[in-house]
């Protein structure tokens, strides 16, 4: 029964956010379509739009699914159900991360296929693309954790603004790291130690943020 209620809460979130997911996939696909047109202008614009689509969905899911649920007082309704605060946290993390993974994986596969088959972008860019795509994933986890732990719109917005304003800065510094950019024009993806460190760092951050969220939530004494 415990698993069943968590499953129902996850399914509920999926039903509520289907449109957002479809729209983000659509926006990402359009961005890749722009890249396909060739030339520097469309490639830069398409790439930026592609990441904006990922950042948008990564921002909207925690806001609509967690912050608004509390703000609009739906949380009291959910907590009247046979669910504990830690089960609610589990359901929210699985549903938010799971929902994000749908457009994330779909668009990344589409991007890799495009890079490998159309020759518009060299395959050496795949590792960088994966690192860049990992950032909205880290951002989503941070915003999800802040929304769950912070229990207020303010914390959600603070996490949101911090994440979204830091992407540009990180991109800037990444562009100046020879270890990352050396093989970007290579005809095959090169998984050098710097790339692997970045990817490992992102994965570590995701695990750390979600683990901390669970830990803090499990110690809370008042939930609604």
């Amino acid at each position, binding site marked *: 029964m*415990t698993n069943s209620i968590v499953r129902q809460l996850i399914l*509920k979130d999926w*039903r509520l956010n289907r449109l957002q997911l479809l729209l983000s996939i659509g926006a990402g696909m359009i961005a890749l379509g722009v890249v396909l047109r060739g030339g520097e202008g469309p490639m830069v614009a398409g790439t930026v739009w592609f990441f904006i689509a990922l950042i948008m969905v990564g921002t909207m899911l925690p806001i609509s699914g967690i912050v608004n649920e509390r703000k609009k*007082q739906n949380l009291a*309704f959910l907590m*009247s159900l*046979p669910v504990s605060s830690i089960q609610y946290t589990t359901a929210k993390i699985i549903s938010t991360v799971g929902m994000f993974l749908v457009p994330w994986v779909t668009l990344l596969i589409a991007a890799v296929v495009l890079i490998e088959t159309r020759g518009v972008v060299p395959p050496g860019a795949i590792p960088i693309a994966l690192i860049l795509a990992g950032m909205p994933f880290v951002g989503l986890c941070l915003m999800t954790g802040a929304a769950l732990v912070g229990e207020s719109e303010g914390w959600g917005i603070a996490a949101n603004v911090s994440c979204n304003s830091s992407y540009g800065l990180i991109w800037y510094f990444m562009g100046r790291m020879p270890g990352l950019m050396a093989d970007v024009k290579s005809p095959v993806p090169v998984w050098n130690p710097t790339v692997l460190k970045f990817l490992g760092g992102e994965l570590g951050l995701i695990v750390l943020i979600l683990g901390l969220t669970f830990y803090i939530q499990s110690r809370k*004494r008042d939930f609604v």
Partner: protein
Amino acid sequence: MTDLAIEVKGVGKSYRFFSLDHINLEVPEGEIMGLIGPNGAGKSTTIRILMGLVHQDSGDVRVLGHRMPAAQVAAKWDIGFASEDMRLYDGMTLAWHMAFIQSIYPAWNPAYAQLLLKRFGLRAEQKIKGLSHGQRVKATLLLVLARRPKLVVLDEPTTGLDPVARHEILRELTDVMADEGRTILFSSHNTQDVEQISDRITFIDRGRIIDSMDRETYLDRWRRLRLEVPLGVELPALPGVICVRQEGRLAVATANAFVPGLANAYENSGARVQRIETMTLEEIFVANVEHSREEVRV
């Protein structure tokens, strides 16, 4: 011995500007208990502790035999809880909410849900954002009642409702009780609602339970005595009289343990008893709260 649906012993909870102080509360199975208190009295905090949503700092809470908050999940399978600050999903229909709750509770009764839809004048296909406040409260109550809970806990369910909607909701709660074994705890600052359906009434003020007994006992024990006090006569302090207000030759004594002997005692002191009045629950509540606050000040 009657089984207790709710058993609260010595519960305390402290916040920066408010605290619940040694709350004791017992609700036997099959009873309707009304929890009356002014705004900020601690009704919602008490109810949240009962639901396991807020952890008490001290004391024991058992709901339907489950220790709270540790066993809140097991307990909540049999509790239907609705509060005034609870909202359904605006963008979804009532039918969607009904399907959601049905997917969770095996005891959901579709026929009863349909009956409630009809009685409350609701349409399942309507989105929540299109419902009035009264309709939203009824929709929430439908979702609570159709799952057939053993215990219904309602925090200010009638706040902001028009008299017709209030009547419909109270009637439905009374009907629920036709099914023996069900228990209802509901809080309100509207004494009329509580008086209408409760078997037992508990007054709470400033984080303390100030009185708890069955409705008839309240109404039997509380009286207001209007007295004429001739010059030179001093009214005696009598047991069972909690408050005497005198202006010139007229005095009003409020008794919380009235016996006919009280009137005789006043007559014997030289005062004349003009009238002995029964009190409404609201008057009893206000007098009780004022008395309790004076006691605290002393």
